[in-house]
């Protein structure tokens, strides 16, 4: 399931609902992204997440479908927020449930790696020097590419 929303989410309630009644689930892996108060040595007072309505939902649904094709998942959930967020606020939730931990953990890792390099979100950070758009990081590209390498190795 995919949700793109301005509002915060209740972590406990979301995770409980995701696996409720499904007793084939033996493992639930979760990633939660939070706003930090520092970026590259500069203090961050707040950030505003902009996105591309329509394409965001489409891309996230494609990424989720890819995860379900690669791993035997019983359930999955991606929630990504947009709008103005402050340090400590939740930005993103990725949760994957499977019979066993390996599939759940790997699928969760895959989803957040791909989301960071594909989903059309942009962060505008507010600091002492004003607001600036965050530049993409090569390390995120490298993290996402290792999943492509696995494909090649398997072929």
């Amino acid at each position, binding site marked *: 399931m995919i949700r793109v929303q301005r509002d915060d989410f209740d972590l406990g309630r979301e995770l409980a609902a995701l696996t409720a009644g499904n007793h084939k689930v033996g493992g639930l892996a979760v990633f939660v992204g939070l706003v930090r108060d520092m970026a590259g040595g500069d203090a961050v007072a707040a950030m505003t997440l902009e996105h591309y309505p329509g394409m965001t939902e489409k891309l996230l649904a494609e990424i989720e479908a890819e995860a379900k094709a690669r791993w035997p998942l019983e359930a999955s959930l991606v929630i990504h927020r947009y709008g103005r967020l402050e340090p400590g606020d939740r930005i993103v939730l990725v949760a994957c449930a499977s019979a066993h931990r390996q599939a759940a953990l790997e699928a969760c890792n895959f989803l957040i790696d791909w989301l960071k390099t594909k989903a059309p979100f942009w*962060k505008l950070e507010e600091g002492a020097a004003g607001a600036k758009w965050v530049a993409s990081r090569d390390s995120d590209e490298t993290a996402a590419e290792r999943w492509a390498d696995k494909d090649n190795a398997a072929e």
Partner: protein
Amino acid sequence: MKLLYFAWLKTKTGVAEEEVSPPAEVTNVGELLAWLKDRGPGHAEALADLQVIRVAVNQAYADPDHPIKAGDEVALFPPVTGG
């Protein structure tokens, strides 16, 4: 054709979206970007370095040689930074 601009591409061009009718010789994404540079100083600045611009045609990532036509929704944005 509807154009959408996000993040600093919106700031630099000064528009979030606009309707354009490129000439017939503009048939793909690369040609569209080259044509857009001449729309004004804001567009010229925003499109100065094409390495840092990503394009989506009808909400799917598109390479410079991806064809475009009237009625398409074409979005221009920097590399994404969500998550």
